[in-house]
């Protein structure tokens, strides 16, 4: 029996990587296969330390690449094990082929992605190009604003992934360095409570069941491939419900509610910012500041990116006094109209057939700092847009012109 480390709710000074590793320790996965990559490296180091000291029962595979990390997770999950990994930026890109295999085979692998820019030029710092590039690989995608959310989201991700209605892999992103490496106050939950919350993995079609041999990863020709893809769409629709239910269950047990989106002061807002990840936090501080001057700004933070909560976003906008929207994209879509999040929000408007003036801000690429001044600058542009001024569709924050 592995030792009980955290016996009661404890507030600790943790980095995002430490928080993620701690969640993994408490989840106690059967198999972890991972390859070190900045800024995920210390996450794996912390976890390896747990393995080295008998704090988990996990079979830990220090693989030779991210491609093999995900491949081993696929093998382990198909064998009926609870499998986890973690990566960042180029590592996620290297996994790309196997991402679709994990989701296509409906294997509930859970992974932290420490969001990092993609090469070239090489850059180790935070942006969300990695996950945005992988957004159609059939994974459920959650994003965290800070270390505590990463911790909470990972714990929930296990339940979301393993639910019989979903059986989909989940990746949980946190911004590289500003979250992964920054010390912050994190609420840790007791080991046993987490264990109880995530519950037992109930494997489906285990490869280790030699009495009932199954074939995983068959060839689907033109006569069946499309049916399996249709099933995946359905699973994502279910995931929308399951994520909400798990969020509610988490609130019941641990007193903190997670929904697909988090709204901040949107009710009376004239202007709405839509942001994913750590910069949503900075935006809250700016919103408080500008509200002192009477400027009513609200924030919609996207937690669930896949399945995208179109109606949650539209409901929040509709319930406000929204006159204009500023979408923040920490990733580029070269050749597209604006960033990937902009595209999703535009789709949300289409689905409700309700349209608001909206502009996009590309920010924080390759770890470029996005501070209070830049967010104020963005708010200023959204206000001008609302006032009928012509503002470019795509605006860059903190760019050297």
């Amino acid at each position: 029996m592995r030792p009980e480390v955290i016996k009661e709710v404890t507030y600790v000074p943790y980095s995002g990587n430490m928080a993620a590793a701690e969640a993994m320790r408490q989840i106690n996965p059967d198999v972890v296969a991972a390859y070190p990559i900045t800024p995920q490296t210390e996450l794996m180091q912390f976890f390896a330390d747990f393995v080295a000291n008998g704090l988990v029962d996990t079979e830990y595979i220090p693989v030779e690449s991210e491609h093999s990390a995900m491949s081993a997770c696929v093998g382990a999950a198909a064998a009926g094990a609870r499998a986890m990994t973690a990566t960042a930026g180029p590592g996620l890109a290297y996994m790309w082929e196997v991402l679709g295999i994990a989701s296509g085979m409906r294997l509930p692998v859970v992974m932290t992605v420490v969001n990092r820019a993609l090469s070239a030029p090489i850059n180790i710092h935070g942006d969300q190009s990695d996950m945005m590039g992988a957004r159609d690989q059939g994974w459920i995608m959650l994003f965290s604003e800070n270390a505590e959310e990463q911790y909470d989201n990972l714990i929930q991700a296990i339940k979301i992934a393993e639910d019989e209605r979903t059986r989909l892999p989940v990746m949980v992103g946190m911004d590289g360095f500003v979250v992964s490496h920054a010390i912050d106050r994190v609420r840790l939950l007791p080991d046993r409570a987490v264990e109880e919350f995530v519950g037992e993995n109930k494997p489906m079609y285990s490869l280790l069941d030699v009495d009932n041999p199954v074939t995983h990863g068959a060839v689907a020709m033109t006569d069946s491939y499309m049916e399996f893809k249709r099933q995946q769409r359905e699973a994502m629709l279910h995931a929308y419900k399951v994520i909400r239910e798990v969020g509610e269950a988490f609130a019941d047990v641990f007193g903190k509610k997670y929904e697909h989106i988090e709204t901040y002061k949107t009710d009376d807002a004239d202007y709405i910012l839509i942001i994913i990840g750590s910069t949503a936090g900075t935006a809250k501080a700016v919103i408080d500041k500008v509200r002192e001057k009477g400027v009513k700004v609200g924030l919609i933070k996207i937690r669930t990116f896949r399945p995208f909560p179109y109606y949650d976003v539209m409901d929040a906008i509709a319930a406000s006094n929204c006159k204009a929207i500023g979408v923040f994209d920490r990733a580029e879509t070269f050749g597209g109209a604006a960033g990937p999040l902009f595209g999703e929000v535009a789709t949300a408007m289409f689905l409700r057939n309700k349209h608001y003036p909206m502009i996009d801000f590309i920010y924080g690429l390759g770890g470029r700092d996005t501070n209070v001044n830049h967010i104020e600058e963005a708010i200023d542009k959204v206000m001008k847009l609302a006032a009928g001024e012509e503002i470019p569709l795509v605006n860059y924050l903190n760019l050297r012109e």
Partner: protein
Amino acid sequence: MAEVKTAEIKLPPLKKLTNYPEKLAPGHRLCAGCGASIIIRQMYMVANALGYELIWANATGCVEVCTSIYPYTSWKSPWIHSAFENAAATIAGVEAAYKALKRKGKLPTDKKVKFVALGGDGGTYDIGFQSLSGALERGHDFIYVCYDNEAYMNTGIQRSSATPKYANTTTQPVGSESLGKPQHKKWMPEVAAAHGIPYVAQAAPSHWKDFMEKFKKALLTEGPSFINVFSVCPRGWRSKEEEGILVTKLAVETNYWPLFEVENGKWRITYRPKNPKPIEEFLKLQGRFKHLFKPGMESKIKELQDEVNRRWEWLNKLEQLSREV
């Protein structure tokens, strides 16, 4: 690593092996006369006799494509395919899951299971090389079996690093300026042996007793094993379907495909042709070498013979050295 103690465990005679159920069902869509399914069947003969359940990870390739076309599977064992280049990494995950779940008491204790990764030469020598090397180095308890048919046959006879010199392939075809592949084949077993794993072997299904002995050793070995098996491809080699075993035998009898093993670092030749035949005997049965039999090409055949001789000599030296060290 535990030492392989296999001498006392004997395989029953061929006739007795027929008493076990076939675990590779017919109805797979491999070409008529394919060597790969012969190899798989012979592996099952050993596993059946020793009471092992095999759990497979199959790299993308002929075997994978032809045995698992939805909704049909030829496998009566647990089997997984995930991609071309990751059979070794995939089986590593399965094996790790086994260890973890076994430790947690979640698996029955009365079963003998062994994990097998299966790939063609493309999935082994080339694109799957990294994941294979990683899995061998980490020491997972599994057997990697490469069915080496010396090119990317699944996709239409493209050259691989296992393709022999002067073979005609679709990506290095014979032409006015080309005699086929310009390089000799990579010697994969030596690369595998360089990982210091407990067991490496090269085998051929024509010499089934030898192959079965080797698979038996791999089965009984704790830790990783690598077996490179010669796998006739009538379509890709332009050989006659019915001559598949003959071609395979000739590969062995000419020393083109020597049978040997590396057990805990000791090299041993397991079969020595009494009077090795000239390489032409092997080449002439295959259309992929047809251009070498035109007038003026004698030096090219000699070149191939020289390479065979060189490797054979090298192998003998390794064996000798193993005895001395």
